[in-house]
């Protein structure tokens, strides 16, 4: 996916330019978001930014073209925030570099992230935690093609030689949302397309949509679980689509407390790994029972992620609530895996 290349470039740039970094940046500045990155040393920060901004407005515009106006309350408020922040962004663009260098946290930066995430409510802040490299990708259909080669990173990272250059791809996102109204599952199952309901087996309606390709479990209490999306935004979009379906059936559905519960990523280190060595030296974190499961289960403490490491070099990371945790976990494990490379 082209969107992934952006993340790859981000990471490479982050590692490559680390040496340029004099003072360690405060965590608040660390979110490396394409739109928010300030390039004091770059040759043409302004033009890059302008092009970024254009992309931003364009993509945000695209997003609002999906008809969500029926969704009340907290969501329309967010639309207002979006427009407000976009203008703020433009005016503040010039003072960004100064404030960044002085080390002050910029509230607008976070707001921009908010807008670009187009996520309402407090849960969006979770996307902006330190190390969150790409909290803003409003619409995957519009990938960014920006020259990001000269972006200065904001966190002290491992030196170039140890940086993996591999970015895990997200495979599955599980999220929950509260539609905040009692639902008649039978009615939903009867009137909705692609809905299954078998009360004897399971007390929820299973609904599927094709774009984004996801599955939702809708409970009579109004709570809903959405699985199968490949990014946070897609998960949110899908959840909204399900909410709209429910609304169209006549229920007063809202969209409260959208929360990402689990994120699964995977990647390939491209060399075989000697798991016997790994399980011996990292005993307190790893379990390896090849008769039961061909992969080694590594429970990383910080961040709290479970990694499944296979002999072939494939790594699956799960248990993350944020994308940054997956990236961080992979960067932590990569040097360890290199140590057990099977030549």
């Amino acid at each position, binding site marked *: 996916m082209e969107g992934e290349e952006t993340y790859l470039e981000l990471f490479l740039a982050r590692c490559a330019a680390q040496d340029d970094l004099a003072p360690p940046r405060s965590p608040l500045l660390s979110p490396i978001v394409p739109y928010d990155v300030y390039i004091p040393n770059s040759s043409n920060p302004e033009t890059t930014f302008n092009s970024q901004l254009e992309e931003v407005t364009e993509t945000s515009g695209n997003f609002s073209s999906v008809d969500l106006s029926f969704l009340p309350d907290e969501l329309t408020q967010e639309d207002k925030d979006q427009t407000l922040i976009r203008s703020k962004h433009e005016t503040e663009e010039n003072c960004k570099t100064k404030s960044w260098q002085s080390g002050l946290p910029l509230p607008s930066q976070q707001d921009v992230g908010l807008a670009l995430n187009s996520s309402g409510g407090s849960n969006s802040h979770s996307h902006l935690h330190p190390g969150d490299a790409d909290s803003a990708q409003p619409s995957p259909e519009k990938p960014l093609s920006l020259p990001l080669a000269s972006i200065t990173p904001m966190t002290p990272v491992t030196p170039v030689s140890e940086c993996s250059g591999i970015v895990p791809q997200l495979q599955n996102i599980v999220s929950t949302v509260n539609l905040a109204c009692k639902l008649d599952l039978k009615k939903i199952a009867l009137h909705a397309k692609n809905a299954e309901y078998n009360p004897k087996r399971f007390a929820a309606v299973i609904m599927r949509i094709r774009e984004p390709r996801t599955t939702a479990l809708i409970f009579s209490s109004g709570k809903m679980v959405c699985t*199968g999306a490949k990014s946070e935004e897609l998960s949110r979009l899908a959840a909204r689509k399900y909410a709209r379906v429910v609304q169209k059936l006549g229920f007063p559905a809202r969209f409260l407390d959208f929360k990402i519960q689990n994120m699964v990523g995977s990647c390939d280190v491209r060399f075989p790994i000697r*798991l016997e060595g790994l*399980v011996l030296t990292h*005993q307190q974190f790893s*379990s390896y029972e090849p008769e039961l499961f061909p992969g080694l289960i590594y429970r990383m403490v910080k961040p709290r992620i479970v990694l499944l490491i296979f002999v072939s070099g494939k790594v699956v990371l799960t248990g993350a609530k944020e994308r940054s945790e997956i990236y961080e976990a992979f960067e932590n494990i990569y040097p360890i895996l290199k140590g057990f490379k099977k030549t």
Partner: protein
Amino acid sequence: MNNTAASPMSTATSSSGRSTGKSVSFAAELQSMMFSLGDSRRPLHETAVLVEDVVHTQLINLLQQAAEVSQLRGARVISAEDLLFLIRKDKKKLRRLLKYMFFRDYKSKIVKGIDEDDLLEDKLSGSNNANKRQKIAQDFLNSIDQTGELLAMFEDDEIDEVKQERMERAERQTRIMDSAQYAEFCESRQLSFSKKASKFRDWLDCSSLEIKPNVVAMEILAYLAYETVAQLVDLALLVRQDMVTKAGDPFSHAISATFIQYHSSAESTAACGGEAHSDAIQPCHIREAVRRYSHKIGPLSPFTSAYRRNGMAFLAC
């Protein structure tokens, strides 16, 4: 091969399978398994056949005892509880079994979270499957535990020495392998009786039993079969190591009489050279290992009635 009275095989009451010409044989899989557990690159076929025999006999005996226990409590199937009951005496093995069961639960939980289809299937299956085995084990041990030592095992975090040794051996073995050999090794390691559940069931041949084991019990039996093979390999490697006379060993002149029977003269001269000429475990090693394991050495061993009653010491429990 030696079939004197000293051999434990001849005292086994149930059929060994060799005479009945069993169609289901795990010999090929066992060869792979033994390689993954520490044997040479190509374990001997005779050794595999012998190991298969030992494992089969022990499992049948175990099943019969489990059936008795099951009948005692009036159940219709042999379940995990009965097997846990039989293992209760040996703390280390019990703990290893518990860890295995927990790992199975944990692994299903994780794999479920990864694939959305698995997640749905699990939800649809209705019952709460998370930590199913752990609950069974915990409930059961709770009911039979008088002194609290069994329940203490759930919190016990001691290092399992046997497992540690196996891990170290595997690490040593794999360190010198190249990429292709290592791939083969990994495949061998993944072999287990639980992977071939239907073949295992046929091989076990529970038709003579009145009470049959249920699903979880079959899982445990597959695990116990694997444990038996692992124990046999561990012990056989020790026996083989013993056979090599080391310089400076004060007891080298005091080898037991039964020991010498299993030695071929060719082997002993080669062994004295310091390096065994054949890397593979020989059937004689296995036999010696089983003999030593069953033979309770100690001042009161002739009078220990419990040992007599079983007739065969279980390697897995």
